[in-house]
Structure formats: C-alpha cells, structure tokens
C-alpha cells in the first residue's frame, strides 16, 4: 500500500525514535522507571479517591434522604419518639423511622466498634449480596449478631462462635455469631456489630421511648435541602443531615485526604521535576552531535523537533501505560494496599474493601497531560535551541 509522503515521513520518524530508544535503553530506563513510579502513585491516589467517592455515592443512594439527630451542648443525645410523630405530620415527609445504634469501646483492643440494629425497610438494594452467609437480616435471632470482617478478624471470630458484649450496666451479654458482612460492604460494615433492637437497647441503655436518631423519607427527595431547613425550624433542639450533605462531606473528606497524600508525593514529584529540568538544561554531547548531523544532512528544524516529540511521546506513553495499569491493579486488584491506611480508615480498623473498578476519562486525561506535557517540553526546548544553531557550529562542538 502506498502511503502519502507525509505519513511515510512520520512513520520513518517513529521508527527512528523507537530504534534510538532501544539502542539507548540504558539512558532511557531510569527516566521510564521514575516516570512510571510517579504515574503509578498519582494514578493510585486518584483511582482510590474516585473509587471511594463512587462507593460512597452508591451506598448513599440507598440511604434515607434526611437524618435527624438531637443535639444538646454540641453532643448527640437520644431523641424522643414524640419527635418522630411531629415530623410525620409535615406534608413533605413520607415516612419517619427511629434508628437504634451506638458505639462501644473495647479497652482490651483499644478499638471502637459500631453497634446497630436492623431497621425494617432499610436494607441493601434488591439483589445486592451483603452477607457471606445465606441469611435474612430480619430473621436474626434475639441472641444472634452479624459482624463486619474487621471486627471478626480483630476478635478472631468465625460464624457460630460466641460474641461477648458489655451492656450499659457493665454486665456481659453473650451472643452467637450468625454471619459476616461481605468485603463489598467493608467501607460501612468493617467495624459493625448488628444486633436485634431489644438487645441493643439493653446494651446502649436506651429507654423504650427513645431512639439514637430518626431517618426521614421525603415525597420529593430533590427538595431535601429546603425541607431540612424547615424541619430544623420545627425541632430547634435537633440537627438535620441531608443525604446530599453527607455525600459532599465524604467527597470533601476524600478530596482532603487525597490532597494530603499528594503532599507526600511531592518529594517524588520533585525528583521527577529535577529529571525533567536536567533534560531541559541541555542535550547531552551525543544528542547534540545527532542533531548537528541530522541538520547537516538536510533535516529541517521542525523535523528534528518532530523526532524529539515522538521520542518523548513514546517514553511518556510507555511510562503512562505501565503506571496506569499498575495503579489500576494496585487499587482494584490489591485493594490499594499502599494507600488504604491514609485514605480510608477512620478508626484504627482500616477497612479492607473492594472498590468498584472505574477509571474516569477525566482522571486518565489529567494523568496523561500532567506527565506527557512537561516531559515532551523538556525534550523539545533544548533540541530546538540546538537545532536553531548552524549545524556547522554543532558539529565543531562550538554550540
């Protein structure tokens, strides 16, 4: 097949660029490695935060629109069920359900765990598998518990084992472990102990006419912000959290953590910048000679620059492909093992979780342009300076 001369010219340049990279692999290898490492870490960070946001979004999508908590002196306290009746009367409210939950501190392990009861009507989306065993949440026995994988691991528990919890009077209560939550729900269930409501009220010392908080479903979920402010006015001793507000909070938290991690990466980025700068400072003697020879045998300045552009692009694309692939596997296959402690945990139990695999186009493009752009510029600038000089001066070593 006969190709247009312009295409043939580009193919020849690409071919030459590949050949020279293979010949000079010893020089190119450190650059590719540093480059790959930077993209791997930045990519891991971005994929993890993107994945956490996506996971938070997916989970919050099944959450109630509003959560009402009673706050006294800046501290959340049990909310009387009479408040639920007042909220139910509001025309925007479709349903109000009291929730019973709390936390307890395990002095032996110095960990805080979450205790929660099953809330009828609130569960996983249809078809979602949240338990490793075939169980129904609403069929949990009065003396049975379900626990997250983190709690089970810390306590060394397996289904059928005894679980000892201490109630509000200090008396131990013995339960049987009926099952474990799946890894897919780790972000939310890792430190969770699910107990039937009567037993949980005894553990927490919660009176029958009280709840930990209230969850509110609305007729028009898209108006949750406006309704929330009206309900807050109705119950001055309460604060009303919206699902959208929680989502913003999670996004902001993950964004902040991502920024902090980026700061740690700054050292590596500095090393990369130094590499780029040394490139930009000037071509090596060998590169200068090559440019001089190419110019002397009739290459235009733009053709020399095109060759450098292809070289830089090949190095950048190779490092990009390796870095992104490595980051993808690291985050979605190996559970972001290097970044998880920094990005995910809010107790000393760092959740292990299966993030939903996703590589947003924006993230991929950001990584591409932040890596390819500076590197190619660092190659082109000195080559352009050298190529502009009379090739005679380059060949004589005068430039």
């Amino acid at each position: 097949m006969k190709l247009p001369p312009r295409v043939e010219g580009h193919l020849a340049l690409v071919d030459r660029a590949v050949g020279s990279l293979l010949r000079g692999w010893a020089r190119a290898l450190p650059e590719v490695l540093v480059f790959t490492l930077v993209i791997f870490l930045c990519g891991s960070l971005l994929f993890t935060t993107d994945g956490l946001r996506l996971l938070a979004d997916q989970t919050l999508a099944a959450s109630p629109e509003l959560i009402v908590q009673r706050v006294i002196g800046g501290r959340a306290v049990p909310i009387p069920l009479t408040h639920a009746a007042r909220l139910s009367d509001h025309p925007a409210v479709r349903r109000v359900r009291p929730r019973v939950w709390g936390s307890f501190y395990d002095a032996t392990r110095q960990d805080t765990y979450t205790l929660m009861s099953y809330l009828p009507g609130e569960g996983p989306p249809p078809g979602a598998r949240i338990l490793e065993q075939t169980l129904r949440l609403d069929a949990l026995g009065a003396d049975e518990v379900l626990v997250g994988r983190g709690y089970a691991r810390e306590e060394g528990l397996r289904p059928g084992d005894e679980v000892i919890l201490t109630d509000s009077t200090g008396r131990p209560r013995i339960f049987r472990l009926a099952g474990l939550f799946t890894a897919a729900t780790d972000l939310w269930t890792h430190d969770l102990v699910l107990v039937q409501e009567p037993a949980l009220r005894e553990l927490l010392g919660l009176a029958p006419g009280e709840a930990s908080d209230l969850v509110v479903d609305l007729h028009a979920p898209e108006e949750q912000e406006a309704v929330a402010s009206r309900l807050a006015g109705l119950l001055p001793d309460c604060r009303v959290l919206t699902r959208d507000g929680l989502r913003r909070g999670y996004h902001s938290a993950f964004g902040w953590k991502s920024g902090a991690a980026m700061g740690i990466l700054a050292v590596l980025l500095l090393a990369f910048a130094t590499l780029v700068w040394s490139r930009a400072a000037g071509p090596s003697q060998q590169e200068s000679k090559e440019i001089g020879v190419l110019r002397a045998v009739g290459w235009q300045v733009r053709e020399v620059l095109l060759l450098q552009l292809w070289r830089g692009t090949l190095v950048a694309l190779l490092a990009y492909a390796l870095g992104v692939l490595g980051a993808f596997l690291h985050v979605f296959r190996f559970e972001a093992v290097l970044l998880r402690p920094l990005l995910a945990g809010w107790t000393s139990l760092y959740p292990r979780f299966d993030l939903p695999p996703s590589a947003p186009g924006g993230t991929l493009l950001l990584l591409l342009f932040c890596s390819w752009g500076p590197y190619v510029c660092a190659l082109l600038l000195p080559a352009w300076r050298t190529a502009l000089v009379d090739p005679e001066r380059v060949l004589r070593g005068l430039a």
Partner: protein
Amino acid sequence: MTLPSAAPRTALDDQPLLHFSRVGKSYRDGSREVWPLREVSFTLRAGEVGLLLGPSGSGKSTLLLLAGGVARPTEGEVELLGRSLARLPEELRTTYRRQHVGIVFQQFQLLEEERVLENVILPLLPQGVPRRVAQERARRILAELGLAALTQARAGLLSGGEMQRVALARALIADPALLLLDEPTSQLDTVTATSLLGELARLRGRGRGLLIASHDPRLVERLRPDQTYDLRDGVLTLLDGPGPA
C-alpha cells in the same frame, strides 16, 4: 556500476553548478574576530572536479561547509544552481541542501551507536521516501562501495576506511548534483585510498560536480581534477584550471 547518477548531461551542464563570489567568513573567538576565508571566488560546473589543496587549518573545511549551505558566509555570495544560499531563508536553504548536496565530513560525522544502514538512509527519512525503498537504495550503494556485509554493523565499530565509505554512501543516497568531500583520504591507508579515489573517478563521469578538500598534493596526480586551488590563510589561489567565471 550503478551508483546513483545525477541528471544526464545536457547543455545546462555548462552552467555554473557552484559559484563563490568574494566570499568571506569570520568567527568570533572571544573578543577577537577570526577570518578563515577572505575574498574567495571560483566557479565549479556540473561534471567538473575541483580540488582544494592546503595545510590543516587553512579554511578548506569552512569553504566546503559554505558550499553546502551548512554555514552562511559573513560576506559575499555563494550560489548553488543559480540560487544564492545566503539569501535563502533557513528552511529553503536546508531543502536545497538535501536536494542537491551530499557532504562527506572530515570526521565522517556518523552516528556511531547506530547501524550502517540507519546512518546511510538518514537524509531520506524526513522526505517521505518509504523506508523499504530507502533501505534498498542504501543496500545497493553500500554493495557497490564494497560494504554489503556491513549493513547491520554498528558504525562506531568500523575502520576508518569503512567509515569513510559509509559517509560517502550517505552523501550519495539522495543522488545530489554536488558532492563535497573533506579530506577523503586523510585517514585511509594507501590501498583503501586508491580504491576510494577509483570510486570518485567513476562518480565524476556522471555529470555530478565534485569539490574535494585535501592537504595531500598527490591527489592532483591521482584525481586529475578540472580545477586545482591552493588555500592558505583563507586566501584562494588558482593552481590549474579555467579560473573564476
């Protein structure tokens, strides 16, 4: 022998191929201005061989680089095929060079990390000549110069004579009208030099102009040039030939 030939000889062959008119070239060496060439004038026609004799440092290489449009004159005119190289914009000057001039540099200026074949096809790469075609042409020229077995050898591992021939093959690959050779025999033993001069003698019969710079006066006998000049301290003197047009 099928070395690439320039266009068949026509009446145009009597037209000047290369014309120097009062050409001077200066460099700045610190605060001092050095003039390796002054007031150089001569004409080379298609099919002619011009020989520049002179000791090392006399300005021969500078003159060749000016003739090939690699360097620009400080004063005067260098015309190639009737076009003033100094007045051409950089891009056109480069285009003119790659279309009409082949240069064999004194130090060969090969890319030593690369293979012989890659060195030879360099001038053709950006011109859109299919790589396969360029490689076939390079192999043919290399074979005719006795280097068929070395096409895949690294240029840096060759002997001086082999490097010289690779540089000659690279200069010939684009079938130029003007071939410039800087000290073509300086790094060759007698046998290799004789062989190379045989090749050059064959090239002169193909309507191509040759301008050769050398410090070796024996080339006058062995090449039988149409014009012979002596270049000393930047001043050109005609020793034998028709003289400036």
